């Protein structure tokens, strides 16, 4: 079920109305939340409900096992990791692995591994990477004694399957969410209004900005010939950068707003990533829940930066390459991760971001440099294959061709709107205003009414959220 559909509006009205009737009865509320979340997921393809139930079931039992048989804690952790990563490998990576083995061994059609994979396993279940990571964080945290295991299976499944962030994050931590789920927090008027603002902003980002930029990007990338214009491809990559940001951040905003209406609090998943003046900073602002997941559950356990420079760099490369692979089973995503790893490594070696902090001009130059790195990396992320990505990057740096950005009037309007918004946020204008005072409160209300109106009349062609496929 897509957030940007009328069916979801009906679903949400039903869900919140009944939740209101349930009131303070925690168990009933958790049951309602779990049942509706499974309906929400099953609406896409009920066959894959078994995967959530299997993945969650294994982790629930593994955590119980850890407390019951203290000496075998590691065994239960390993079982949980095998089950989760196994399911992820089968449904997300089996096609990719088989393809590459076929190509490497030059296997004929009759022996092709790919062609022998049952079709069912070639369907990537929506949001599989997200809920697998949710679930894994639980067993790892229980193993590390950072989180008390729950004995209530409904409580656990309410955490795993909560519809607000089930299919595209943010990736929640059991230690943060499980305690929240057990409380019925009275929702203050401020929080209700805040939730509303998040939801409206999220829909605006997704339906107005991302969905209107999508056709421009799709047209550029689906054309059989790479347009030979440097400026054109820089323009297209700016459009894509904003499209993917608004698509994903829009989803996160809606998820966060809905959670607020339930009395739960998620951390920010995006914090204006494109104003970053170093790549390291970019990763503290982009998909924060994923980057912190990789940091806490992969980079640090690998040794982080505690075991010398070389080992630290190696750990960072492993983390970035796996982060790329997490996004999709293709070499383009691995290249995307590798480009980020390369430039992060360059930052570590040269320490240029610290040196550039000395002057405002250098800070701006640093911002430009980081933006170029991010845009080039996005080329690989968006391309159908490495060949296409490489040709586009070559064209971008050829500095030849026609003088056009490829945006048209539509693209220009939406890109400018989004850029202005980011600049306003970067300057911190909003924070300087007391939105609770009479005049500003009315201005804010009118602003949000205008945003809703814009969503209605300037919504793009409804499409799935990009991150659903991850």
């Amino acid at each position: 079920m897509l957030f940007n559909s009328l069916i979801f509006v009906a679903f949400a009205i039903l869900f919140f109305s009944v939740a209101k009737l349930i009131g303070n009865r925690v168990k009933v509320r958790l049951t309602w939340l779990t049942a509706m979340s499974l309906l929400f997921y099953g609406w896409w393809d009920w066959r894959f409900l078994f995967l959530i139930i299997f993945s969650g079931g294994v982790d629930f039992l593994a955590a119980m096992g850890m407390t019951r048989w203290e000496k075998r804690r590691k065994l239960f952790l390993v079982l949980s990791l095998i089950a989760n990563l196994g399911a992820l490998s089968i449904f997300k990576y089996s096609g990719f692995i088989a393809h590459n083995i076929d190509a490497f061994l030059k296997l004929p059609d009759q022996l092709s591994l790919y062609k022998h994979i049952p079709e069912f396993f070639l369907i990537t279940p929506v949001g599989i990477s997200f809920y697998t990571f949710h679930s894994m964080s639980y067993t790892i945290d229980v193993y590390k004694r950072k989180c008390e295991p729950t004995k209530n299976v409904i409580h656990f499944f309410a955490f795993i399957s909560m519809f607000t962030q089930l299919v595209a994050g943010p990736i929640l931590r059991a230690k943060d969410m499980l305690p929240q789920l057990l409380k019925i927090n009275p929702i203050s008027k401020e929080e209700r209004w805040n939730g509303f603002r998040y939801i409206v902003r999220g829909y605006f980002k997704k339906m107005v900005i991302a969905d209107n930029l999508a056709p421009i990007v799709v047209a550029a990338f689906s054309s059989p010939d790479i347009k030979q214009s440097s400026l054109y491809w820089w323009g297209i990559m700016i459009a894509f950068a904003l499209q993917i940001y608004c698509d994903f951040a829009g989803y996160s905003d809606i998820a966060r707003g809905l959670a607020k209406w339930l009395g739960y609090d998620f951390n920010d998943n995006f914090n204006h990533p494109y104003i970053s003046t170093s790549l390291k900073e970019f990763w503290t602002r982009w998909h924060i829940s994923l980057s912190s997941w990789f940091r806490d559950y992969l980079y640090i356990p690998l040794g982080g930066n505690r075991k010398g420079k070389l080992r630290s760099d190696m750990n960072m490369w492993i983390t970035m390459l796996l982060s790329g692979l997490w996004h999709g089973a293709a070499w383009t995503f691995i290249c995307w991760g590798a480009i980020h790893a390369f430039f992060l490594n360059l930052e570590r070696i040269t320490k240029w971001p610290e040196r550039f902090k000395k002057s405002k001009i250098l800070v701006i130059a640093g911002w430009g440099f980081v933006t170029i790195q991010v845009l080039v990396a996005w080329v690989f992320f968006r391309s159908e294959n490495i060949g296409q990505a490489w040709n586009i990057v070559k064209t971008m740096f050829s500095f030849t061709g026609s003088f056009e950005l490829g945006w048209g009037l539509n693209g220009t309007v939406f890109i400018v709107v989004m850029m202005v918004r980011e600049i306003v946020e970067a300057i911190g204008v909003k924070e300087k205003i007391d939105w609770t005072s009479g005049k500003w409160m009315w201005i804010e209300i009118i602003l949000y009414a205008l945003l809703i109106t814009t969503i209605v009349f300037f919504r793009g062609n409804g499409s799935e959220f990009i991150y659903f496929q991850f």
Partner: protein
Amino acid sequence: MKKNFNIVITLIIASVLIATLSLFMPKDKEKYLRDQFWVKKTFAPSVYDVVLMGDSRIERGVSPEIMEKILPGMNVLNFGYSNGGLNPTMYEAAEKKLSKTGKKKVIILGVTANCITPYTLKNEQFLQVKKLPREDVIERMYLNRILYQFSATTPEGLWNYFKNEKPATVSINEYYDNGYVKSGRIPIDTMYAIPSYIDDYTNYKVDEQIIADMVSQIKQWNEKGIVVVGFRPPVTVPMKTLEDTMGFYNEAAISARFNEAGGHWIHLNSTEYKTYDGSHLDLASAMKLSEVLAHQVSGILAQPEK
């Protein structure tokens, strides 16, 4: 003001703005009706006695309403798609539209050259609709007649709307629930479609395997008691020549194999029909073709079983 009224006030202001603006904003009613049309066709129930298959020449060239008048008691569905192919995916989908309880079942194939080239194997339009998320299907099926009042636009669309420029050509499309599109073009240009077909037949030719699959399907349908009728939708002489020469369409050979497999091929005289773009029949010709087909089907059904 208390914060708990903020949401209500915002929604009231937004509703007033939306209602007011909807009076002035451009409305793309055709897009909404078109989207609804494709969903209704693709997800049509299994209640039909006669199902027409093929590409846009069928979709725009045969009216089930006219056919039903000549075939009383029979429900007819036009299951034609733009660039629709005749291939196993479409055969299966079309067969599912036939009534389970109907005594007489008929599938009519509009065998254009385009339908039996590898290009239409993609079944692009059909699959695009078939794969729509369920919520989109529901929205398009039941709400599009309301939603068009709040048609989405773009800055460019708004600009063009207020500039009020009249387009040089006008396409007429009227969508029917039975899968037929009453269509036309002003001004009529019988050479309009030729260049795009030259492109198509430069890259794609009539495919032997696709014809073999069709023959095999006719046999299977015959075994199930489904009557299969085929014909070449009429077009202009230049278009027909183009398809025969560049697309390698051989009507004599195809019709012979069609009949051998147990189907009933209807030979039509193209010169008796007129098109508005060289490819699609004008309204009068579409009505005439619908009548001719219905009479032929009626005659075939009246014959003793083979």
